[in-house]
């Protein structure tokens, strides 16, 4: 393992620690939006898809598979954030007074 890889491994572990720390007590009300938002975030794989399909020296296989991945990743991102936003919009409806229930 070279040192760049070791750095990446470190980053990986630290990000996992952050992920664990980040979520502790979340009101049930927000479970679905939270799931939906993190779901949108892993659409970041789109970045990987763009790099994979766009790099030099690809052939037809890479192009087809890669473009499918780009479409998939974009659906994940756009749909994910959009639907999360719609969910959260619904909570705004009505006369919710500040912090109560949840």
């Amino acid at each position, binding site marked *: 393992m070279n040192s760049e890889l070791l750095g*990446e491994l470190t*980053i*990986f572990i630290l*990000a996992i620690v*952050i*992920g*664990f720390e*980040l*979520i502790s007590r979340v009101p*049930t*009300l*927000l*479970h*679905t939006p*939270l*799931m*939906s*938002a*993190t*779901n*949108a*975030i*892993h*659409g*970041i*794989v*789109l*970045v*990987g*898809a*763009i790099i*994979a*399909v*766009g790099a030099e020296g*690809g052939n037809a296989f890479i*192009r087809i598979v890669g473009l*499918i*991945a*780009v*479409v*998939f990743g*974009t*659906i*994940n*991102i*756009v*749909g*994910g954030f959009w*639907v999360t*936003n*719609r*969910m959260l919009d*619904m*909570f705004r*409806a*009505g*006369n*919710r007074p*500040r912090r*109560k229930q949840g």
Partner: protein
Amino acid sequence: MDGITAVAYLIAALLFIFGIRRLRSPDTARSGNTLSAFGMIIAVITTLLSFEIVNPIEVFIAIAIGAVIGAVAAQRVQMTDMPQMVAAFNGVGGGAAALVAVIEFYRIQELGAESEGAFITTTILLGVLIGCVSFAGSVIAFSKLQDLFLTGSVSFPLQTVVNAVLFLGVVALSINVIAGGPAPLLSVGIIFGASLLLGILLVVPIGGADMPIVISLLNACTGLAAAMSGFALSNDVLIISGSLVGASGTILTRLMSSSLGRPLGKIIFGAVGATSSKSKGDEEEKPVHSVGADDVAAALKYDADKIIFVPGYGLAVAQAQNLMAELASTLESQGKDVKFAIHPVAGRMPGHMNVLLAEADVSYDKLYDMEDINKEFPETDAVVVVGANDVVNPAANDKTQDSPISGMPVLNVEEARQVIFVKRSLSPGFAGVDNPLFYDEEKTMMLFADAKQGLQDVVAGVKNA
């Protein structure tokens, strides 16, 4: 990767972190989602600008197609169908991660790109495995929630053995590939297929009631798969964001499963299904105390001071929330003490009932969580259960029976003096478990009606009687 790209990626990752952070509280959740989306835009634009993309037009078209599909789907979906929508979006994400991993492997093997050794190969294979499981599992979850196919808990013989064999096969092939054995591309192809199959087989035996938890778990998996592809591409933003989702998704899954009272192990390996409890046969035989809307109105008006409403999925289906609010305020204006009991999983997504009643302008002060309201039922005169079954089913507490809801905490409405059900028939709810309370002729009144019509009649009755 130059400095500016790296910094932009780091900013995007931090925006994801702060976004998730703000999603922990209702007051800041919206801004959290916006922050995360903003981070995503930064990450994608940075990628488009700082990598030399050989086929930009194609990529743009692909992005445009994906964006339109995602936006239309997200905009069109009914509120009640959002869980399956999340499953679908998660599935395509997992698919994308698997495909990226395949491309990277193909580049190394076939096009002789520089390989970085066993570690990278391992991450690629993990990306394929996890991504495919997530994709296939999500498809099944979607189909179950959408009532397309394989609904309910489908069990087949030897499923544990089959899964184990598949998994060991994947492991064996992976070792072959990592060790530089023969036919690497073919091996990866088989791993791809076997992982898809594994994803299907893992989710098929799980009942629809547990799907939200399964989707959350698959969500964490997709995150992990994205992180794996980050190693192959040596891209920090992928690694950070992916592992962030992987870890927070895991915790979220545990939170959900504990709030639903369903331990994760039981969901995945339990495969409850075997003893299907949908035994329609004897239902019709047992007598129930069926009443009309006027009887309900009279009972509420003249024979109850403290009333609790329990909304369920049926209320959402019938869109009767405004009528429930109207009934409540009418009763209140007659001096009665009216509350709403919200079960954490009433409806089809967490928070479903809160949203529904907020639409009907019910004040949040009147909504009570399960833990808070459960001690009040013994002092309650009448409970009005509208379009709910599982969340008030005392069978969940019955330790002698193993049903899909056993162990789930429920609203103990049977402790009230009187229980009034408003639903169309005696058919059970989502989990398919019959409710013994229906047949308690002493305590229970059944108003067989569509929630909208039924509540309308009761409101009229209460106002006029």
